[in-house]
C-alpha cells in the first residue's frame, strides 16, 4: 500500500502551520509516518482485535501480520516457518536440532537457510515497526558473521551451485571479499559453474582485493571472460556492477566506461539510469523519451546522477540540456529518481540557479510561479539569484512582490538578502508609483528591524539604514525619513552619503528651520561634510537672525574641534 500512496502528497493542514519552509514539511511527513508505525505496532502486538474481516474481497495488507512463531515442534515445517518470518537465530537453532534428531533436511531447504543467513549476516533483522535501532554494531560483525553460514555449508553432504552462491554473496555483502574469491575457486574445483548472481557479487568485490587500478580492471575482465566461457548471460546488474567497480578505478575507469555502455546497447539491455555515470550528451540523446525503472537496488545513488547531470550542465551553462533533463523527469516513473525532499531541493535549486543566470526575466518568472512553492522552497541564495536576474533585466519594480514571498518563506531574517534587496531599491530613482511601492516595502522592512519580539533581532547596518532613508526621500516621505535619522543615532551608525539628499528635499520644501536642524545633526555626527552644508544653507536659504546665530555657533565649535 505504501508504494501506491500519492507521490505529490504534501502537508495539508491549512492556515496553521507555516508550511513554506522545507524543514517543517519534512518534520510533518516524518511525524505522520511515525504515527503510522505506532499504529502498526499496536496492530501487530494485539492482533486479536483486528481479525474481523469486513472486506469482501479480502484485503490482505489490512490484516495484522503474524510475527510470532506458531509451529514449535522440531520439524521441517517449523524451519520453513522460521525462514519465512526471517528469524535467523531461531532458524539456525531449529536446523541444528533437526540434524541432531537425525532427520535429513532437503537441499532446497538448506539452501534457503543459507540464503537467509547470508542476507542478514547472522543476526535477526530489526522489526519493521519497532523504533529505529543503531546499526553500527552490525558493521563490526563482518568477519565473524559468516561462521554459522560456513559451518552449515561445511556440514552439508552435497552442495550445489545455489549453496555456493548464497555463501559467496553473503561474504561479499558483509565484507569478506577474499574469502568470497576462495569459495569461488572451490566452486570451480568442484566442477560446478557459477551463475549470474555469483558473478555479479564477485565483480562488485573485485576492486577490494587488488591494489592497483590496472590489476582491478584485469580481474574484472578475467571474471567477464569466465562468465562467457561458462555461458552465463550478463544482465543489467552485471553491467551496473562493472560500472560501479569502474568508479573505484579512477581515470582508467572513465575510459573503459564507454565500451561497456556500447556493449550494453549491443546486448539490448534496458538501461537503468545507474549506468550513466560519467557520460553526458550522447547519453541524453539516447535516453530521452525512454522511461527508467528503478531496477537496481542501488538506484538510490542515482539521485546523485541527476545532479551530476545538472552540475555538468551548470558548468557548461547549457540551458538546453537542463530543459531536457527536466523533461526527462516527466516520462513514466522517472520522478521517483529524484529522491527525497533533500535531493529534490538540491535539484530544483540548481535548476533555478541556471534559469536565473541564463534566461530572460519573463521565462524566469514563469518558472518561478511554476516551481515555487509547490515543488521547491528556495534558500536565500536562490532568492538572491532571482534578485540578480531582476536587476539584469531591469524589472526592479517587481521587488515588493518578491519581498512578500521572502517574508512568507521565512528568509526575512537573512541580513545579506534583505540588505541586497534594499540597496537594489535605493540605487536609482524610479517612476513615482514604483517609488511609492518601494517606500511601502522599505517601511515594512524597517518595521521588521524594529520589532522587539523577534528571537534574533536584526541589527541595523549603515547600508540598510541609508538605503531605507534614500528610498523614503526619493518617495518624498520626508517625515519618515527624518525619523530614520533618529534611528541612526540609536544604532550608532553614521549617515554619510545622505546629507546632500536631505538638503535637496529640504530645499524643495523650503523649510529653513529643518535646514538648520540638518546642519546641527550633521555636526553632532561630526561629519566632514558639515562645513560644506553650512555654507550651502547660509547661501540658499533665507535664515532668521536666530538661525544665523545658531549656525555661526556651530561653525565656531566645529572650527575649534578641527
Amino acid at each position, binding site marked *: 500500500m505504501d508504494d501506491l500512496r500519492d507521490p505529490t502528497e504534501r502537508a495539508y493542514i491549512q492556515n*496553521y502551520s507555516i508550511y513554506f519552509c522545507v524543514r517543517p514539511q519534512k518534520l*510533518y511527513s516524518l511525524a505522520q509516518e511515525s504515527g*503510522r508505525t*505506532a499504529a502498526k505496532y499496536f*496492530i501487530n502486538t494485539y492482533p486479536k482485535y483486528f481479525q474481523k474481516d469486513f472486506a469482501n474481497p479480502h484485503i490482505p495488507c489490512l*490484516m*495484522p501480520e503474524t510475527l510470532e512463531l506458531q509451529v514449535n515442534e522440531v520439524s521441517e515445517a517449523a524451519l520453513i516457518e522460521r525462514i519465512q518470518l526471517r528469524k535467523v537465530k531461531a532458524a539456525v537453532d531449529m536446523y541444528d536440532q533437526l540434524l541432531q534428531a537425525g532427520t535429513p533436511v532437503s537441499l532446497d531447504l538448506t539452501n534457503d537457510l543459507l540464503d537467509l543467513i547470508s542476507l542478514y549476516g547472522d543476526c535477526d533483522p530489526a522489526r519493521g515497526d519497532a523504533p529505529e535501532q543503531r546499526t553500527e554494531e552490525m558493521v563490526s560483525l563482518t568477519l565473524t558473521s559468516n561462521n554459522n553460514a560456513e559451518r552449515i555449508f561445511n556440514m552439508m553432504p552435497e552442495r550445489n551451485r545455489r549453496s555456493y552462491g548464497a555463501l559467496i554473496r553473503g561474504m561479499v555483502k558483509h565484507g569478506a571479499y577474499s574469502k568470497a574469491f576462495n569459495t569461488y575457486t572451490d566452486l570451480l574445483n568442484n566442477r560446478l559453474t557459477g551463475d549470474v548472481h555469483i558473478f555479479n557479487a564477485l565483480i562488485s568485490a573485485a576492486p577490494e582485493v587488488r591494489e592497483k587500478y590496472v590489476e582491478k580492471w584485469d580481474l574484472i575482465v578475467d571474471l567477464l571472460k569466465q562468465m562467457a566461457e561458462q555461458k552465463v548471460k550478463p544482465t543489467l546488474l552485471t553491467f551496473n556492477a562493472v560500472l560501479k567497480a569502474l568508479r573505484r578505478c579512477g581515470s582508467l575507469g572513465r575510459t573503459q566506461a564507454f565500451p561497456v555502455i556500447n556493449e550494453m546497447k549491443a546486448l539490448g539491455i534496458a538501461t537503468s539510469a545507474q549506468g550513466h555515470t560519467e557520460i553526458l550528451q550522447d547519453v541524453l540523446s539516447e535516453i530521452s523519451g525512454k522511461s527508467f525503472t528503478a531496477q537496481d537496488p542501488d538506484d538510490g545513488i542515482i539521485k546523485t546522477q541527476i545532479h551530476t547531470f545538472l552540475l555538468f550542465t551548470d558548468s557548461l551553462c547549457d540551458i538546453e540540456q537542463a530543459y531536457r533533463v527536466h523533461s526527462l523527469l516527466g516520462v513514466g516513473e522517472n520522478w521517483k529518481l529524484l529522491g527525497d525532499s533533500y535531493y529534490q531541493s538540491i535539484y530544483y535549486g540548481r535548476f533555478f540557479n541556471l534559469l536565473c543566470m541564463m534566461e530572460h526575466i519573463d521565462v524566469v518568472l514563469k518558472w518561478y510561479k511554476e516551481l515555487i512553492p509547490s515543488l521547491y522552497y528556495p534558500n536565500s541564495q536562490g532568492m538572491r539569484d532571482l534578485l540578480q536576474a531582476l536587476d539584469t533585466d531591469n524589472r526592479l519594480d517587481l521587488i515588493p512582490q518578491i519581498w512578500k514571498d521572502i517574508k512568507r518563506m521565512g528568509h526575512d531574517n537573512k541580513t545579506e538578502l534583505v540588505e541586497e534587496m534594499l540597496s537594489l531599491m535605493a540605487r536609482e530613482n524610479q517612476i513615482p508609483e514604483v517609488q511609492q511601492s518601494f517606500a511601502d516595502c522599505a517601511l515594512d522592512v524597517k518595521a521588521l528591524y524594529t520589532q522587539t519580539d523577534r528571537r534574533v533581532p536584526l541589527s541595523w547596518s549603515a547600508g540598510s539604514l541609508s538605503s531605507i532613508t534614500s528610498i523614503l526621500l526619493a518617495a518624498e516621505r520626508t517625515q519618515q525619513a527624518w525619523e530614520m535619522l533618529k534611528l541612526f543615532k540609536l544604532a550608532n551608525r553614521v549617515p554619510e552619503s545622505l546629507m546632500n539628499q536631505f538638503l535637496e528635499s529640504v530645499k524643495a520644501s523650503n523649510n529653513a528651520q529643518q535646514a538648520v536642524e540638518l546642519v546641527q545633526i550633521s555636526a553632532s555626527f561630526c561629519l566632514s561634510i558639515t562645513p560644506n552644508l553650512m555654507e550651502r544653507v547660509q547661501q540658499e536659504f533665507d535664515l532668521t537672525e536666530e538661525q544665523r546665530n545658531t549656525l555661526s555657533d556651530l561653525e565656531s565649535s566645529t572650527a575649534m574641534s578641527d
Partner: protein
Amino acid sequence: LIFVSFQTVCRQLNSTLWLNVGGRSIHSSAVCCKNRAARIRVGKGDRPVTYEQALHPHQIAHRKGWLSQHTSNLQGEDGAADRTVEDLFIRRLIYGTFHGCLADELVIKRRGNLLVICALMLQKLPPHKYYFLVGYTEELLSHFYKCPVKMEIQMLEEKSVYKYL
C-alpha cells in the same frame, strides 16, 4: 428513543476494545426521550453554543445538514445499523485521541469503500503532533475496518460560537 443493538451488532461490539462481554445479550443505553435528545435548553445566556448544537434535530434538512453520510438508508440498501455503530465508535475514538482539540462534531462521509472523517480542530497542539495523531488514527481505523480511512482536518483559532444560551 431507546437505542437497542441487536445480536449481530452485539457480536461486533464484543470484538471492540472496550466491551468484552461474552455471549449474546440485549444491550441498551439509558433512556433519552425524543423531545430531549440533542436539544440544548435555553439557560442564563452565558453558555456559548455552536451552530450545530443550537439547532434542534427537527431542523435537519431544513437548516442543518447530516453529520454522517452514507447510502445505507436508501431503499433496498442494508447495513444502516452497522454504519451507525461504526460511526459511534469512530466518534468516541477521535474524541479521545484528539482530546480537547475538537471544535465541533465530526462529519463522517463514506464514498464507496473510502471512509472520510472531516474534523474541525482547535490549535491546541503543535502541528507535528496533529500529523502524528492523524497518521496513527488513519492507520488504526483502516486496519480495524478493513477499508481506507482518510482524515481531513481544518484548523480554527477558537470554537465558532453561534449564540449564547
